[in-house]
């Protein structure tokens, strides 16, 4: 089955390669500083040059800042927040899910009650309320986004644990005197983690969108640090005049989110095949 790349695998690899170029390669190039303003060259279209003869591949924003280097920096910020948040939510979710599924009883009732409660407050609203109160720094954002997103992992981990703990290889390990830690380490984690990484690759895209939404609403990443959502929001006022201001960061978001979406899709398929084979 290996060797040949399916269409969605190809798409995933292509899109993620573009993202990698944008957030890893571009910042290494000697480009313009994403913060330096050039009022003589504001709102330049892609490929335009300012009066002082400087060439801008993707044009400039209202303050004459280079769009390409701003997009790259914003991508780094988003990716960092996304990685942090996914790590936090994966660790919290897997831990709580395994505990709930393996030990059952009141612990499970409490954890799943917490999950239900959290699901009943829309994520965006919870994030708005919390960031409004504690303030939206990059670290805060990563932690809050992570803590508000553990439920997806927790539910899947619990579901898998519930079915795995009744599987006969775990029952048999119990009859051989295996402790809970043994079963969790030897059987549950290795079987649950691959699925968690699939959830994670999907959630990464979702987290990026959430962060972008918060930034779009002005409640996420704060200036002067750029973020794609904020750039779209700034561009909204110039939609008729310079649509590229809103469109370019939107395309960047699309590429990243679609890339992770396809990644999680191909991972899911492969995992299914593995289960069947």
């Amino acid at each position, binding site marked *: *089955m290996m060797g040949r790349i399916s269409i969605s695998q190809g798409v995933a690899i292509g899109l993620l390669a573009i993202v990698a170029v944008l957030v890893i390669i571009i910042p290494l190039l000697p480009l313009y500083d994403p913060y330096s303003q050039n009022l003589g060259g504001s709102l330049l279209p892609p490929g335009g040059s300012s009066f002082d003869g400087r060439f801008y591949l993707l044009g400039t924003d209202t303050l004459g800042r280079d769009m390409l280097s701003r997009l790259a920096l914003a991508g780094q910020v988003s990716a960092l927040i996304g990685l942090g948040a996914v790590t936090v939510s994966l660790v919290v979710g897997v831990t709580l899910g395994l505990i709930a599924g393996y030990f059952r009883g009141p612990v499970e009732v409490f954890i799943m009650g917490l999950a239900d409660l959290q699901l009943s407050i829309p994520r965006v609203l919870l994030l708005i309320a919390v960031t409004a109160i504690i303030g939206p720094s990059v670290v805060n954002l990563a932690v809050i986004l992570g803590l508000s997103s553990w439920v997806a992992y927790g539910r899947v981990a619990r579901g898998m644990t519930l079915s795995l703990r009744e*599987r*006969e*290889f775990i*029952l*048999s*390990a*119990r*009859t*051989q*005197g*295996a*402790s809970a830690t*043994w079963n969790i380490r*030897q*059987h549950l984690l*290795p*079987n649950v983690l691959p699925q968690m990484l699939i959830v994670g690759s999907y959630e990464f895209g979702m987290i990026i969108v959430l962060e972008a939404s918060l930034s779009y609403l002005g409640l996420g990443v704060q200036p002067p640090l750029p973020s794609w959502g904020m750039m779209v929001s700034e561009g909204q006022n110039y939609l008729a005049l310079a649509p590229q201001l809103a469109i370019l960061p939107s395309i960047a978001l699309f590429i990243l989110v679609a890339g992770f979406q396809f990644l999680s899709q191909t991972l899911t398929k492969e995992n299914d095949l593995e*289960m069947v*084979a």
Partner: protein
Amino acid sequence: MIPQAMPAAEPANTVLSVRNLSIDARGADGKPIHLVQDVSFDVFEHEVLGIVGESGSGKSLTMLAVLGLLGPGLKIVSGSIVLRGQELTSMAFADLQKVRGKAVSIIFQDPLTTLNPVLRIGEQIAEAIRLHNPNKSKAEVKARVIELLSLVGIPNPERRFSQFPNEFSGGMRQRVVIAMAMANEPDLLIADEPTTALDVTIQAQVMQVLAEVRARTGAAMVLITHDLGLVSEYADRLAVMYSGRIVEQAPGEELFSDAKHPYTAGLIASLPQIDHKVASLYSIPGFVPDPRKRPSGCPFHPRCAIGRDRPECSATDPALREITPVRDVACHFYEETPAWLGQQRQISAIPADAPEATKDDTEVVLKVSHLEKVFNIGGAAFRSHKLHALRDISFDLRSGKTLGIVGESGCGKSTLARVLLRLADASGGDVFLNGAPFFQLKGNALRQRRRDLQVVFQDPYSSLDPRMKIHDVIAEPMRIAGSYSAERVTQLLAHVGLPPEAGQRRSPEFSGGQRQRIAIARSLALNPDVLILDEAVSALDVSIQAQVINLLMKLQKEMGLTYVFISHDLSVVRHISDEVMVMYLGRVIEQGATEDVFDCPSHPYTRALLAAIPQIGGKSDTEGMIAKGDLPNPMNPPSGCTFRTRCPMAQPLCAEKEPPLVDHGHPGHEAACHFAQA
């Protein structure tokens, strides 16, 4: 007469005629996989053709093809299917629709999934009628549905008409499915493992209904099953399939009394018998080949006792040929088969001068006294129901012996295994392992001691962690105990007949039988005294089942193991056990030495169970001995004797007083019945 016959001159009484049918699947690499190859057979009016074979033999696919119901990726590549003179393989969908449900209908294995859960029973049957009788009025259709429901023995058909499938028991559901299949009185009824999902007493009821409705309409039937006993009892003619082809075809009695194909003979010799005990079972070596890697020549030759080393068998694939007007066989050396089978019978028979099994000379390793288990089933908000899953279970099991525990689903036998293994807590009673109390142990002491009591479960697929190498699977108990040794793993692999290299592979590469061997090796890793075998051979095909049973008996002899053998299959229990316990609704209703219980059963339930088991050769006499109706709701069991609602000999006393488990003249053979036969 059958296979090579010219397609033209069919006798007028032929219902279905299949010729040279081949079915392929599309492989992952694009190459076709030949699942059914060159299959030809006929079905005549009023007869029952049994198609037997193990999983993967292509028996179900063949009949799905008749209905044009092959799944995606499967296709008929050649051959013809003629039903009442109509060629079906080339028929347009719209024409096929007129044939399906009218001229031919089908009954699937699992009545739970065969019925649509969100549609009323009446509507599901009415649909079948309306599709082929669009002019019938609503009232006429309903009247016919109710007639059909009463025909298949469903009480209160008017009320049942508007109920949903989840309000029916498994046996009742299958009756509904039969009613649905018979709605338009088809010429041909296909029954694909119709009773495999049901308990044996319910199976007897359903088969009886099936025979009755068939007798009424005169429909021909194809009965597809893996159960040789079932076809022997219900089929007039048999076709045996192996690896996608028919290897032998013959009238029922002839096939079983005088099997000509070595595979058929091997299957018969590997089947434990309910009516007598044999010293050992023959086991067909190896396993059914993957259709992608079929051996050259005769596909059976690597497993064949007669043709294994013969160049002709590995070179030429024998065609199915006519040897008498009613028999066909696909074997180069079929003449040798009867002699071989006779020889096997002699080997397996218990010698007349065999010493009487020594009794009670060893110490008790497992003592169970007054074990109880009550589940609290969380119902709706404020109610909770009590389910008395185990009631007053007591037994002593001596070292080196096997206790067989039998009963149908819901009798508590698997709960008993879990409670004994302390995977679930008992609600009362005591268990002593090697004389020491086992139930009071906690923490480390429990972890140490439970190594003496190990288990092999039913499902060979979920019993091994798919991500672990076999070496690690078998080493796990030693690693938990801190006594890992690689040589011991190799030694254990050898004990269960697997090569040392097997350790480096993962479980998905192994077949069901091999996985069960691996599970056995793992359970033996820490030298346990007692092995609980919870339906350990139930998921396996007949030929593989015999291999594992023989292995278990060999290991018991070599290592002095003590077994608790839990199974719904009474023939297997008879073969392997020294003592037997029969359970019904959480209670032991009969127990004693195997020979006593099987040869002179005293409890009516035991007798009904034994009578319900279809046997090879000779129709069993089920008249009067069939357990009536369904298992009562275990949360609300009947008063007095819990079996009385289904008992053919129940008296008023049975409703008042629960009979105690006592012996009726034979010490050591006890039954819980007021009217037990001594």
